[in-house]
Structures are given as structure tokens and as C-alpha cells.
């Protein structure tokens, strides 16, 4: 297995201004609003942010849930597994077209803030993996109530 290539979509700085600048530059470069993934890595992922969590999605059709392995170390999420496609090896089956690929995959992502590791949830539905990554308590928005004197 080749080592993970750590992918930092937001660049080396942690500031969101840096991120926005880089995103803007990439949008200008590619025009479509969709970034190329790091070196054509599989699977392609989308990352969303909500007030209290990050949500990572990846299209993994034909991959069984038990063949997807997810790790979390600090702010780094790793994803690896295998997509197996096997057809019966008999002379009664002829193959007209093969477009769907099989093979192994691995990717690593660094999140901008720490994650509450105990509350991470992963669901694989309709061939789409959805990772719900709650932010560590100190990174969640807080409502401070004002008391009257």
C-alpha cells in the first residue's frame, strides 16, 4: 500500500480568508465551481460545513459498507477500501463492455478544526458515503445569554 497523500484543500494556513482566496483562484481557473481532486485521487469528495460540524461525502457505488475503512487522527480523516467487481469466469458469460473500475482507494484529509471523535458518524446509503464530523466543543458557536442587572 502506498502511503496516504495528505490533502489540504485549504492550503497551509488555517485562516478562512486564505481558503477563500484559494477557492476563488481555483474557481477562476476551472470555471465550473468544481475543483479537480488531488492528483485525480479516488474517490472524489465534497466537504460541507454547518454551524457545529463538517460533512464529508464521497461517491462509492458498488462498495460494501464493510469494505470502507475510516480513520481519524487529530484533524486528519483517512478513507481507504477496495471496490471489487467480479464476474463469473465461465464460457457462458461474454463481456460486451467494461467501464466500471475496480481497485483500491485511499485518501486523507486535514480538517480546519479539531473533531469530536466520539461523535463521528458514517452512513453509506445509495452508494454515497456521508461522514458527519462534529466540531470539538471549543469550535462550535456559542450563545451567551445576557442577564439583566
Amino acid at each position, binding site marked *: 500500500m502506498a502511503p496516504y497523500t495528505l490533502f489540504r484543500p485549504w492550503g497551509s494556513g488555517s485562516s478562512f480568508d486564505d481558503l477563500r482566496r484559494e477557492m476563488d483562484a481555483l474557481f477562476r481557473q476551472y470555471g465550473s465551481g*468544481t475543483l479537480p*481532486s488531488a492528483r485525480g485521487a479516488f474517490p472524489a469528495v465534497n466537504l460541507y460545513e454547518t454551524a457545529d460540524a463538517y460533512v464529508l461525502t464521497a461517491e462509492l*457505488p458498488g462498495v460494501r459498507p464493510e469494505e470502507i475503512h475510516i480513520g481519524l487522527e487529530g484533524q486528519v480523516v483517512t478513507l481507504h477500501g477496495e471496490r471489487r*467487481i467480479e464476474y463469473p469466469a465461465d464460457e457462458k458469460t461474454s463481456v*460486451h463492455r467494461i467501464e466500471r473500475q475496480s481497485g483500491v482507494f485511499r485518501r486523507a484529509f486535514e480538517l480546519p478544526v479539531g473533531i469530536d471523535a466520539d461523535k463521528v458518524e458514517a452512513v453509506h446509503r445509495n452508494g454515497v458515503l456521508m461522514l458527519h464530523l462534529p466540531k470539538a466543543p471549543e469550535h462550535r458557536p456559542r450563545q451567551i445569554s445576557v442577564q439583566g442587572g
Partner: protein
Amino acid sequence: MAIENPTHDLQLRAKQELQHESTRPGLVFRPDVDILEKPDAYVIYADLPGVDEKTVQVRLENDLLTLDASLATLPGEGWNSVHSEYRVGGYHREFRVSDTIDSAAVAASMRDGVLELRLPKVERKRPRTIEVRSS
């Protein structure tokens, strides 16, 4: 013959967007498919990530097989995109089927975002073995 290559590293291929589907809102992609032929049926496997089987439509008119599906898995409300490598949408693909298909017996099933479409050949198209008996 086995179609298997487990040590191969998967490479990302961009989803192929269809440009001519102007009658429908949203993006439409051309799904990757594998097509196998068995003595009694054709079997098509199509990658349809994000699709619920209830939205899959398969039509067979004369020799044209049409596959349509719309997306079930959408980003939630209040999700701000911070990084995007793929786009989502429906799927459309057409196939010419050379042999006569028994359209009433076409069967579809889905698992983990992959559609399996079984297209049985009509009885007379199947190869038959005729036994010759001596009396």
C-alpha cells in the same frame, strides 16, 4: 475469464455530463456501465451513486433501451460547501439492444448505488439443443 484486478489503484474519472438534456432541470450525467451477455439474458450494471431505486426508470421501445434516474441524496439544508470535487445530478443513458428482449420480463434491482438490469431474451432467441433419439 475473470474480470478482476484487486491490486490496481482506482483512478478518478470525472463524471460525464450530458449537454443535450435541456428539457429537465439540473445536471444529468452518463453513468458508467458494464454489459454482460448470458445464454438467456443480457445483464447491465450501472453506477448510479446517490440514486434511490424508486426513481429509476427503464424503458424499452423497439430496440432502444432508455435508463433514467434522479438523485435522492442531496446536500442538507444549511450545509455550506467548503470544498467540491464532484457535482451531483440525475443520470441518463440509452442502449441499442440487438437481440429481441422479453420486455415483460425485464428485472431491475439496486444495491449500494449500482443498478443491475436483467434483460431476458425471448424464448426463441435462446440457443436450443435438440436431442436426437433413436427409435
